[in-house]
Every structure is written in structure tokens, then in C-alpha cells.
């Protein structure tokens, strides 16, 4: 315990020394620092992104100062509360950031021209209780279905667009018998939620309508649209490989990349892995319940950037953020980190073909983040955690119905979440 208490002021002190030292070294142009948890991106920022910015704005220097992912939240909090911290802070989505906004860490971004490139849903993860934007959306991850195009061609299958077509396709692959229809298993429960239910579900609960309905208490998880979504997910069960109860995420990906399975329900972050064996891979979005229905796609906000309210260089920081909001930054970043997607409504070109296909799924689709991460998981039991657990129970036992899952989820949520209590 002691060691944690000691290390936080220490980290803050180091942070002060660090930013102080940098400021002194480049006295002429303004130097601003950017805190981030993406230590793995250090080369991308230093060699590609920041030089591109500095070429246009020679009067501003940006220092990329990452902190280890696991310590990031604690370190940023102690730095800012100690009056230090970077001028720019990378923002976690939803509940953590909402707390930071409440504590007054950020300068409001109202009036920043670049903000117009993002719609309300994209900004939602970083809005305060006053609905104002405090961080600029930078990158999101998507969820969809990778498919083996050669298997589809061999069996004469078309990419499904409705739930019924989806089941028909799975049925046809199963009947043929040579390939596993879905490379999917339930040993790792998180991906039952993130790559399964939260991917196909929004088409039933109408994306934001259902998600926000749960948050303000107007809807319940036992409402038919949620039960139907869980039932549509349960319908995958007959098409999973045998022994799926024990298959973990690595097993699933491997089954697909070895060409033994036709479809892999997965997130965009797995693009490099899914194509690693040189298969002819395509991607399709979650099917709609009935032909002609509105399409929905899960777009999970991953990171934004905000301005430290105590920064001495707010103007320079705003200039930088405005550039980050534009297509030049977005293209540089998403091409350096395939699987991450720009959240801007301005078109962005992806050099990775599959990433471009994934990004094309956004056209004409309503976007929505993962169902349970915003406010609904900030108590005990957290809705997200319960969803993982109960979906796993549903997939590993034969006698649990979607209705039971929905009822238990609702009971858990209503036991602590105010708007659902009444």
C-alpha cells in the first residue's frame, strides 16, 4: 500500500521536472506536451505525425509523453491535481472521463472549428454532464464479421444482409460439412459481449435509442427488443465448433486463419491477425432483422484528446487539436495503426484494403458504442461484467433462455442504478 502512496507524488514530481525541463530547452517556439497511454505508438507520433504538424506550424513543438497503460489514470490524476500534467491529455472513454470532467481537469472545447467534423454520437464518450465537448474524438474500434471469401465462392454463398440470410448462410456451410460455420467459442466471455451481442444487438434495440433508453431508465433489458437481440445471438449456438465452451480467443482466430472456418465475428483491431496467413478475407457488417431495416454498427470510442485546464499554452494546444480534427492527421494515424478508425464524418482513405472495407461499413449505418460501458457499469454488479457472465452461461448450458438472461441482467442493474430502480 505504502509504495503506491509514495509513488504517486513521485510520479507527479517527475512529471513537473520533465515538462519544466522541456520548456527550458526550446525557449523560442512554444512547446506543448501530450500525455498518452499508448506507449507502443511512440514511434508513430515522433517520426510521422508530429513532424507533419510541426512542418505546418513551425512556432509550435509537440512533445509526446506516454505513460504506461496500467498507471495512466492514476498518474494523470495526481499530476493534474498537483497542478502539473501535459498541456494535452489523452482521454479515456465514458465513465473515467466523466469523472475527470467533473473534477475540472479539462478546458471546454466549445468553439473549436474542427469539432464540427464529429457528430453528437462520436462526441458522446467525452461530453460532460452539461453536454459540452471536452475532448476531441481521435480513434475508435469497430466490430463486424470477417469471412473467408474463397469458402464463400466455393459454396456459392452471398454475403448476408438480414438475420434470416445470415442463418441460411450458416446452415449452408454446416450442411456442406467441410468447414466450421462460425469460428467462435465461449471460453473468453468478454468477446461474447463485445464481438457478439453488442455487434448484432443494436439492430434490434435501435442503437442509441435503446442504449440511452437504458441509461435514462425509459427502457428495461427485459423489453422485447433486448430479449430478441439476445435470442438472435443465441441462434448462433448450433453453428459453433464442437467443444466451443473451451475455445479461447486465440483458438478462434487460429481456426479462421487456418482456413477451417468460414466466418469470424471479431473486432477491427484484429485485422492484421485475421489476414496473417494470406487468406482472401472480406468483411461484412451485422445483419438487420428485416430487409430494408436501418443498419447499425458498433463503433467503440477508444481515445480522445483534451486540453488541460491548467495549461499555460492553451492557444497552441487548440491549434494542435484543430489539426488533429482534420483529415491529414486522421489519415496518418489510422494508417499507422490499422484497426483504429477515424471518428470524423469527413472521408478518410485507408491504405489497408480490409480496413477500408471495414470503414465503408460505416456508410449508411447508425453508429453506437458498446451497450453497457456508459454509466451502467459504474456500480456492483457492473452491467458489462454481468453481460459477459450470463452470455457465457447461456452458451455453455442448454437450459438457459434469452428471457432468463434478460431478467437476471435487469435485476442486477436495477439493484443499484438509480434511473432503473423505479
Amino acid at each position: 500500500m505504502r509504495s503506491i502512496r509514495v509513488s504517486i507524488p513521485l510520479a507527479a514530481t517527475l512529471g513537473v521536472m520533465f515538462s519544466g525541463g522541456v520548456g527550458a530547452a526550446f525557449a523560442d517556439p512554444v512547446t506543448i506536451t501530450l500525455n498518452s497511454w499508448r506507449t507502443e505508438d511512440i514511434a508513430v507520433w515522433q517520426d510521422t505525425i508530429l513532424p507533419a504538424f510541426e512542418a505546418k506550424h513551425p512556432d509550435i513543438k509537440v512533445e509526446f509523453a506516454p505513460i504506461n497503460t496500467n498507471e495512466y489514470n492514476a498518474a494523470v490524476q495526481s499530476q493534474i491535481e498537483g497542478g502539473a500534467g501535459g498541456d494535452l491529455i489523452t482521454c479515456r472513454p465514458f465513465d473515467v472521463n466523466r469523472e475527470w470532467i467533473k473534477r475540472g481537469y479539462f478546458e471546454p472545447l466549445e468553439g473549436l472549428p474542427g469539432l464540427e467534423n464529429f457528430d453528437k454520437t462520436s462526441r458522446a464518450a467525452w461530453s460532460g454532464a452539461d453536454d459540452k465537448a471536452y475532448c476531441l474524438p481521435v480513434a475508435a474500434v469497430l466490430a463486424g464479421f470477417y469471412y473467408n471469401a474463397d469458402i464463400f465462392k466455393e459454396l456459392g454463398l452471398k454475403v448476408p444482409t438480414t438475420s434470416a440470410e445470415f442463418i441460411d448462410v450458416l446452415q449452408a456451410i454446416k450442411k456442406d460439412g467441410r468447414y466450421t460455420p462460425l469460428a467462435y467459442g465461449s471460453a473468453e466471455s468478454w468477446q461474447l459481449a463485445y464481438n457478439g451481442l453488442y455487434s448484432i444487438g443494436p439492430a434490434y434495440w435501435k442503437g442509441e435509442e435503446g442504449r440511452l433508453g437504458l441509461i435514462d431508465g425509459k427502457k428495461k433489458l427485459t423489453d422485447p427488443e433486448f430479449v430478441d437481440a439476445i435470442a438472435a445471438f443465441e441462434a448462433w449456438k448450433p453453428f459453433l465448433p464442437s467443444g466451443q465452451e473451451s475455445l479461447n480467443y486465440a483458438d478462434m482466430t487460429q481456426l479462421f486463419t487456418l482456413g477451417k472456418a468460414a466466418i469470424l465475428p471479431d473486432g477491427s483491431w484484429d485485422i492484421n491477425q485475421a489476414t496473417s496467413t494470406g487468406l482472401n478475407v472480406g468483411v461484412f457488417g451485422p445483419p438487420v432483422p428485416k430487409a430494408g431495416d436501418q443498419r447499425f454498427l458498433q463503433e467503440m470510442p477508444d481515445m480522445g484528446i483534451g486540453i488541460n485546464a491548467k495549461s499555460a499554452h492553451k492557444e497552441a494546444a487548440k491549434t494542435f487539436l484543430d489539426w488533429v480534427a482534420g483529415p491529414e492527421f486522421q489519415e496518418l494515424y489510422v494508417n499507422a495503426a490499422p484497426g483504429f478508425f477515424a471518428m470524423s464524418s469527413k472521408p478518410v482513405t485507408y491504405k489497408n484494403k480490409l480496413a477500408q472495407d471495414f470503414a465503408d461499413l460505416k456508410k449508411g449505418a447508425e453508429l453506437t458504442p458498446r451497450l453497457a460501458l456508459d454509466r451502467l457499469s459504474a456500480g456492483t454488479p457492473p452491467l458489462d461484467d454481468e453481460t459477459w457472465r450470463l452470455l457465457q452461461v447461456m452458451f455453455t448450458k442448454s437450459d438457459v433462455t434469452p428471457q432468463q438472461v434478460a431478467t437476471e441482467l435487469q435485476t442486477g442493474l436495477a439493484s443499484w442504478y438509480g434511473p432503473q430502480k423505479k
Partner: protein
Amino acid sequence: MISPAAAYRNLLLFVLPALAVYLVFAVLPLATSIVMSFFQTSGTSSDTFVGLANYERLFTHPTISGRFWNALLNNMQYFAIHLIVEVPMGLLLAALLTSGKLARSEGIYRTLLFIPATLSVVIVGFVWRLIINPLWGLVGFPLLGTESTALTTISLMSVWQYFGIPMVFLYSALLAVPNELVEAANIDGAGGWTTFWKIKFPLIAPQFGLIAILTYIWTFNGFDLVFALNGSAPGPNYSTDILGTYFYRTFFGSSGQLADLDLGAAVATIIFLTVLLVTAAYFWLIQRRLKSYSV
């Protein structure tokens, strides 16, 4: 000649470095963790004394206490499997190794049997996961994915890894049994079975008891293999959750759960007491009565 007082002073001087290290790195963290369990430290600017509120939450909140009792019961099962399988297996192998039947290959067997205990848990978990993987492995049944078999499966993996410890422990105890006694028993007409149970086992009973209670301590502080295989929310449906993983999830948080340091400190204190009380009771009630024969 040095006076007794000076001797004691010297003794103290020699003990001091180890004592200091022990106090700073074992006793102090333990004490601060116990103290912390009576405070509310997260979410507030200053620490507030809350008395037993964290314990009350741990034992009365439906979800938190439900998961706690589940972890405790699972841990008992985890211990029981080790006690029933690992310790007798160690005894059997130690008996075979010292029986003289293996002649010169004794050393080879001893080494081979001990090797798993030297492997990293991550490797053991990975290898076994592959062996019993329904897709690529030898067993078609999803042992780890079924609630009724998952915990037993993990327990047996742990047994496989660690049976070498009781084996070596009892092996060295058996080596210390004087040959005269065994020979005398043979001359009196006792067979191998009788000699073992009437002569050898009573002589190593204190060590046998010790390894049993050590197994208790190890399993109730167990964490690594379960964590390596199933992460910090060990499924399916928390059926492989033990006290170590429950503590980890509470204190450090998991991807689906926020960290709660104070509640975590309360859990740690309860685990400490569980281990302490049973161990103390064992030494008080049983170990004292196991007579060690001097020959």
C-alpha cells in the same frame, strides 16, 4: 569468555538484519493492509475511518458476498483435491523411491518426477490447455468450459505440477528412518506393507502432517495457475474463482469491474485470518500430539 549478557547482545546483533527485513517487507505491509481495511480511502480526498463497513459490505452485499462465498467454497474444493490426490501421491512415490526396488535408477526417477515442479505456471497452463483443447488436443470434451469440471481440471493440473514437492519432502523423511528398525521388522517376519505402515509411516507422521498443512496454506494462497488459465474473472460463471483471484479482482479491478482498494484490503485480511486460524489450530491440536520417535 564472554558473559551471557554479551552473548545475547551479539545474538541480537546477528538476528537484527533479518528481523529488520522481515518487519519492513512482511509485517509492516500486512499491518498496513489490515489497517486500511477499516478506512475509506478511494474516491475521497482524505482517508476516513469507517470501522467495519468494508467487512459489512463484503458479507452482506448480495453480489459481493455471493462471489466471496463461492470463491471460498471453490478454494475448499481446490484444497481437498490437493489433499486427496497430491499428498498421497507424493507419499506413494516417496515410498517406492525408498523401497530399494528401483536400485540404481532411483536418482533418475526422482529427478524426472520432480521436473514439473520446476516449470513456470504459465508454461504448465499453456501446455495443459493445448493437451485438453477440444480443437487441437486429445480430449474432445470441453473440460475447462464446463462449470462442473473446470475447477477439478485446474486442480489436477496443479497437482500434476506440484506432486514432486510432497514427494521429495517425504522422501527425505523416509531416508532418515534407520535401517536397523526395518531389518528388525523383516526378521520378525513383517512384509513390505506391514513394515511401511507399522514402522516407517509412524516415524514420518509429523512430516506428513506438516506437508498436509503446507498444502492448505499453498492452496488458500493459490492464484497463479487459475489466473494464467482464466484471467481475473475465472469462468465459466465464476466456477473456478478462488480467494486469490477474488482478491485480485477486488483490489486491482478487472476489465469489467472497478478497483476497490479498501474492500480488497478487507478480503486480504479475511484470507489471512482463514489461513492463520486453521494453521494455528492444526499446530495446537494435532501436530503437538504427533509423537516424534527418537532412535
